[in-house]
């Protein structure tokens, strides 16, 4: 009876996979009884070194390829006159107008080398912020800065990430990115992009992975996430609870999320991501001509990720964008080279602006690895 049941179970096992086109074990094969205790005590024949994995249990899937679309609600842009405005000045911002963003987001992240002892990923991104506004030329509801960016903001980047395990628990992560950002659009006759205006950022992080449910690290980053060049410490803390139902995905201050695993194919994330960069403004009507828009936003959101089929997942984000920075710098005084203001510098802005919070939605289709 036991043998019959075993054969039935094996047939079910085989046929269910065969039906999906996964496997077809030789039909004449009969599973033998196995004494699994014989595998308790073994000795090595081959030799390998054990390295820690770059992942822990239940992290949200790693996206190889992603295509998404981003739409925001309306925000009000208030702009100062062209001048020299100290960061902490009470600036008069009399130009104002409403705007919405929408645009495509394409990202690729390809593991060029992916072995136990070394992982090297190379990626690229294309993010577009098209702008819709109902402002009228020369009317009361008119914003001069909006004239310069109404064609949209485009960001293209190339990036690479290196994961190097240092034994069974320690690891190093290096991340480098080069970006071309500006008010350019492809196919138009306007100036840009110009390689001389490439922005470089990077992160170096040392970490520990004490077990399959926890990994943490500390490091430093050269970043434009706050809109302008900054050097900041970073802290990683990825954690999965013992019940495997919840966890955290944190790379502070860039992002911090609470993760809830509904099941292996449905994940909910809640938290924030700091997004930002510096955009070159080409062909403007301002007096100063080496202008950079320092744009930074905190995206507080709920992010639902769902497996559609196999390695194809969809993502839906909904939340609010808190516009942290939207100021303009002129690089003429620094010979067109970027400079460091940090959180406490008092270099002046050419335009000091604010953009009010706006709701947003993002939907994406992703090819992932879990």
């Amino acid at each position, binding site marked *: 009876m036991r043998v019959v049941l075993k054969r039935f179970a094996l047939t079910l096992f085989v046929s*269910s996979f065969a039906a999906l086109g996964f496997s*077809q074990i*030789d039909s*004449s094969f009969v599973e033998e009884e196995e004494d699994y205790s014989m595998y308790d005590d073994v000795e090595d*024949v081959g030799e390998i070194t054990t390295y820690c994995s770059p992942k822990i*249990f239940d992290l949200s899937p790693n996206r190889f390829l992603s295509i998404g679309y981003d739409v925001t609600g309306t925000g009000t842009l208030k702009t100062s006159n062209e001048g020299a405005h100290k960061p902490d000045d009470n600036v008069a911002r009399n130009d104002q107008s409403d705007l919405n963003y929408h645009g495509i987001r394409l990202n690729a992240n390809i*593991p060029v080398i992916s072995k136990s002892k070394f992982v090297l990923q190379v990626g690229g991104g294309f993010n577009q912020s098209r702008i819709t506004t109902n402002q009228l030329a020369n009317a009361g509801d008119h914003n001069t800065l909006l004239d310069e960016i109404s064609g949209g903001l485009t960001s293209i980047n190339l990036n690479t990430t290196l994961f190097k395990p240092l034994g069974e628990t320690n690891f190093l992560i290096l991340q480098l990115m080069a970006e071309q950002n500006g008010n350019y659009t492809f196919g138009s006759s306007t100036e840009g992009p110009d390689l001389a205006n490439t922005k470089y950022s990077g992160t170096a992080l040392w970490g520990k992975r004490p077990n399959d449910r926890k990994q943490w690290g500390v490091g430093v980053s050269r970043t434009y996430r706050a809109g302008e060049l900054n050097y900041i410490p970073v802290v990683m803390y990825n954690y999965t609870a013992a019940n495997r139902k919840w966890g955290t995905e944190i790379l502070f201050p860039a992002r911090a999320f609470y993760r809830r695993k509904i099941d*292996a194919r449905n994940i909910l994330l809640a938290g924030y991501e700091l997004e930002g960069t510096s955009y070159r403004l080409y062909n403007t009507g301002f007096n100063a001509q080496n202008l950079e828009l320092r744009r930074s936003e905190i995206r507080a959101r709920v992010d639902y990720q769902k497996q559609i089929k196999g390695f194809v997942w969809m993502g839906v984000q909904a939340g609010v964008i808190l516009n942290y920075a939207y100021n303009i710098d002129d690089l003429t005084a620094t010979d067109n080279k970027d400079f460091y203001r940090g959180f406490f510098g008092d270099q002046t802005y050419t335009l000091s602006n604010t953009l009010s919070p706006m709701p947003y939605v993002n939907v994406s289709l992703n*090819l992932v690895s879990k």
Partner: protein
Amino acid sequence: MKKIITLIGALALLFTISSFTSSPASVQDGGDDIIGLWEPSNGKARVKIEKIGSKYYGKIVWLREPIDPATQKPKVDKNNEDEKMRNVPLRGYRMLKDFVYDEESKEWSGGTIYDPESGSLYSCVITMKNDVLDIRGYVGVKALGRTDTWKRIKIKKKN
């Protein structure tokens, strides 16, 4: 007459045996070198690779943590996409399936590797050097994948 029948019977038997032994499925080649006991780099499992018909399969025969802390019962394939499979014990599970050896490229390909921790089934190609396997699981194309190294192990002889 009886001798002739016996002779014909013996020849028929010989022909049957030879036709089986000369079939591609039974040719002894480098492909069988993979047969044996292996341990992935994370040391969490031991996998017995065997040949069934003309293909190679790998079965989990040992788990470092055989009991699921959540249920206090032997671990099952709870992350499987197929609900019907979620009660199948992980020990005894064939995580490597359908590999065919290519003498020219010296690799086992055309098969799949199953990751019970994520419930994902990856395309897979295996190469071997000095009792170490390079097992590359990938999504669609080999470039979108990751390689793990497994070492050969053997059962300790009892004194």
